[in-house]
Structures are given as C-alpha cells and as structure tokens.
C-alpha cells in the first residue's frame, strides 16, 4: 500500500510538471501575438499619418513595457506622402520564468521581432 501511494504521488508530480511546462509554452506565443496586434495598430496609424509619430511610438512602447517586454527598440521609416513605402521594425526581449526541471524554474529571454512594410495613404496637397 505505501508503495502505491509513493508511485501515485510521483506520477502526479510528473503529470503536474508536464502540464505546467505545456501551459508555459503558450506564454511567449501569447506575448508575440499581442505584440503583433499592437504593432499592426501602430502601422495603421503610420499609414494614415505617413510616418511614425512620437505619440504613436510612445503608446506602443508603453503597451509593450506593460506586457513585460524590455530592451524595446522601435524604428519607423516613412516617406510621408501617399504611395511611398513605410516600414515599422520593433525588436524587444520578452522575459519570463519557466520550468526547466522537475523542481527547477529559470528565467528565459526570448527576442521578438516585428518587421513589416506598407504604403502611406496620407494625401499631401
């Protein structure tokens, strides 16, 4: 009977560890998904304004920082008038804690990059 309790306990610990690892697998994916959504919103603003405004840059930086990103580098290249290419490149580190052993947690750093190009819609008369 004691052997059965021990074995059941070990199986439960392993199962729990596996579930935690599996759930933590979603953390960076979810963070990247959020980053893509916010960067896309910023791109839409850039398309209308023809460039990356300071306010848009600050808004994006704030959202990313609140989500747990660090070392955020935002670069927007825009021509200004309608028909010219605009580019938004965002690089940031996502730091999170994850289970690396049965009872060991360590900090992981994931570099994430968003780099997209579109065309300005700003009409300059």
């Amino acid at each position, binding site marked *: 009977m004691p*052997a059965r309790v021990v074995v*059941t306990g070990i199986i439960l610990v392993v199962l729990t560890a596996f579930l935690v690892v*599996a759930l933590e697998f979603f953390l960076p994916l979810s963070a990247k998904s959020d980053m893509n959504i916010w960067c896309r919103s910023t791109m839409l603003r850039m398309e209308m304004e023809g460039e990356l405004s300071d306010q848009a840059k600050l808004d994006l930086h704030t959202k990313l920082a609140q989500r747990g990103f660090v070392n955020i580098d935002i670069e927007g290249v825009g021509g200004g008038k309608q028909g010219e290419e605009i580019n938004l490149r965002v690089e940031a580190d996502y730091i999170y804690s994850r289970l690396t052993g049965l009872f060991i947690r360590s900090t992981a750093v994931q570099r994430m990059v968003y780099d997209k190009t579109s065309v300005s819609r700003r009409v300059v008369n």
Partner: protein
Amino acid sequence: MMWQRSSKGSAAADVVIGVAVIVLVVLPVFSAVIERYIVLNKAQIIKDAVDMANISAYNAINAGNLGRNAVTFDSDKADEIYRFILAKNLHLDDTLSAKPNSIVEGTVNIESLILYTGGFPLACPEGTYVEKPSVHSCITVPVKPALYRRIILDLLGRQHIELKVHVDSEIPVNN
C-alpha cells in the same frame, strides 16, 4: 503472502497506467492544442500581411480620373504593388516562393485580386457582400506544422498544410 504479491502488482500497474495516460492521452492532446494555436497565429500573421497588401494596392488608384468623379484603378500597378508588399511582409522572393526564415513553406498562390469601385452591393468570389469601395484578395499559403511535422503530414498524406486566406479590405474614404 498473497496480499503482498497483490500489492506489488498494483504498484507496477499504477506506473504502467500513469505512463500510458501521459504518453497516450495528455501528450497528444496538448500537442494538438499547441499545434492548433501555432497554426492560428500563423494564419493571423498572414491575414495581416494580406490586409496590408490590399490597402497598399489601393494606391494604384487612377488620380487623373478622380477629377471626373470616377474611381478607376490601374490593374497592372495594383497587382505589382500587391505582390511587392505581400512578398516583403512574408519574406518571399519575386516568384512568391519562400525565402529562409519565412513562415511560408513553398509558393504562395494568388487566387484572386479584385478591386471593387462601384455597382454596390456586390458579392466577392468567396461570398462576402461588399458595400463600399474595397479590395478583395484570396491566397493559398503552404505552411509547415510546428510540432511532430512528419507525423502530421504523413497522416494527412500531404507535403504541406495549405491555408486559404481571404481578406476584403475597405478602401478608406478619407484620411
């Protein structure tokens, strides 16, 4: 004596059942969920790229005709802009084939690219009703599964998983 043997047997059976549950139930279920999540994320990234290409294609508008109150497009230019922006955002070459580090695997096929400027409401080839000036496009994108790639492809009997992405983007009326 009989009870002790039974007890040892039960412990061994517990180990076998526990391992079997992890390997045969928990692992495949979580893998399927993670795989699905990754594919949905990829689909969203591709959809954003298509939306950007649609909106960019709007710049092929013929400005000369606007003065005569007519909204017309240069189709060749629209196609050129669309391909250029799509290729740039999905890391494709000129033939729309994947470059290294692209989320695409293989060649992207543009099934339709239509610019709607009048005669509304209209139905696009995918059945969506369009009521304002819009750019419709539909592409098929081969993507690779993230986990257990070989097994999934073998089960499906395919080389790639093909995502069909359809986006109708309204042309902004003013800025």
